[in-house]
């Protein structure tokens, strides 16, 4: 099963956007999605992410379903 994920900044530059992350099931937690993303896109290694669902920041334990818009955010650097 694949989950569409929007990328930004250096992630987008490296992998394009959106990407499709292979997941075993949905819904899954945000943390599980990040683990799956890191498996598939190993070059990101320990780069920390924020994750947004339907245009709001969410936490590791929050659930992601098939209809949710998901974005992975590399470290921000506004200003």
């Amino acid at each position, binding site marked *: 099963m694949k989950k569409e994920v929007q990328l930004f*900044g250096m992630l987008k530059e490296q992998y394009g956007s959106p990407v499709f992350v292979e997941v075993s099931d949905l819904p899954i937690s945000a943390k599980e999605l990040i683990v799956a993303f890191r498996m598939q896109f190993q070059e990101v290694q320990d780069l920390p992410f924020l994750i947004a669902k339907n245009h709001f*920041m969410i936490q590791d334990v929050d659930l992601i379903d098939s209809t949710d818009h998901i974005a992975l955010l*590399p470290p921000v*650097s506004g*200003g």
Partner: protein
Amino acid sequence: MKTDFQLIAHANDFPDLEQFRSERSGAEVVFNGIVRTPNKGSEVLYLEFEAYEALFHNEMNRIAESLESQFQINAIVLHHRIGRVLPGELAVVAVVYSQHRKDAFEACEALMNELKSTVPIWKKEFNSDGSFWVSQTP
């Protein structure tokens, strides 16, 4: 509390702040962030800013509510450039209006700290040695 959060595509598109002033706000603190060169020893050619616009607005609203719970604030403004920005140009304008100066200073500085922590804007620096994504947080 009035708020105005905008992503600005061109150097001349920053809104005039006059509209946010009021005789009830004795203190207006403005942070103007300007693209600086040199940076860490290299001559900066330009920065490229990218934003996630829908999340930008939602995060800014969350930050504004959080600041309003900590400070007396009449209005908060954040205008941030996207796209290519040259040295000497404005990258960000952050403004807090309050009855009193202490709240305006502290809230404006807190607003900038929040901006640099969670607001979905990314910056790539192009300098005389090459280019790199600036990584601050998380």
